[in-house]
């Protein structure tokens, strides 16, 4: 299986991930997180980036929970046809 072969080569070839690659990934993560995007200096430490990432992921999970709550209210209260029409309309309008 090609997937098995590639994972084996990755295992033997990259025994030590270089610091450059780690800092590369840290910068990439930093760009994704809104709070850290504002202070775009290179002084943000890796641990702070990771911590903010954790907080951001937790916030996103909480938003998904909240939106699921509201969606369930809507979907329960309306009947089939009008709900589907409203859903499709709302998604086409964005």
């Amino acid at each position, binding site marked *: *299986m090609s997937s098995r072969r590639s994972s084996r080569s990755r295992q033997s070839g990259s025994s030590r*991930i270089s610091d450059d690659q780690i800092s590369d990934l840290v910068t990439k993560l930093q760009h994704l997180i809104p709070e850290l995007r504002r202070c775009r200096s290179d002084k943000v430490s890796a641990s702070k980036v990771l911590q903010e*990432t954790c907080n*951001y*992921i937790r916030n996103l999970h909480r938003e998904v929970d909240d939106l699921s709550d509201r969606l369930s209210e809507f979907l329960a209260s309306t009947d089939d046809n009008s709900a589907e029409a409203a859903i499709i309309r*709302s*998604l086409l309008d964005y």
Partner: protein
Amino acid sequence: MASAYNPIYTDVPEKDVFALHFLQTLSNLRTQNSFSSPDNKTSDRVKKIKKAAYVSMARAAGGTNRLWSRSLLHQAAKRNNKNVRFLRRKRRVTWLMRRRSNRGDPIEDVAAERLRNLVPGGGGMETSKLMEETAHYIKCLSMQVKVMQCLVDGLSPK
């Protein structure tokens, strides 16, 4: 060393893909008789919608191509007691990778551990792979949140 390391590919599909998958999962939910019946408790309904959101997000993001989506789908199917057939990655590789990452930098280990608990499937990954998966996961999560926000905005009374 650039050839030994895979380039970071964290491209995420467009919002439409996420919306499509979410709508499909939602409509499947609605065709179930138990969903819109009045005996159905609100908390059950919310849980089902939440699970639908995560499953549709995992499917939209590439199904079994990414580790986190694969783990999500696996967890969801296990809860339904479905027989899941995935390409089994070798468990031995996972154990070895964990040993390697434990020998790594101590600075990132504590925060990386917290991250591993948050990202599905993060248990057996090296730190670099974990961060790749995290980046992709964050992008997909924010897409999913946008889709759901659009839905809620469209459905709320004007």
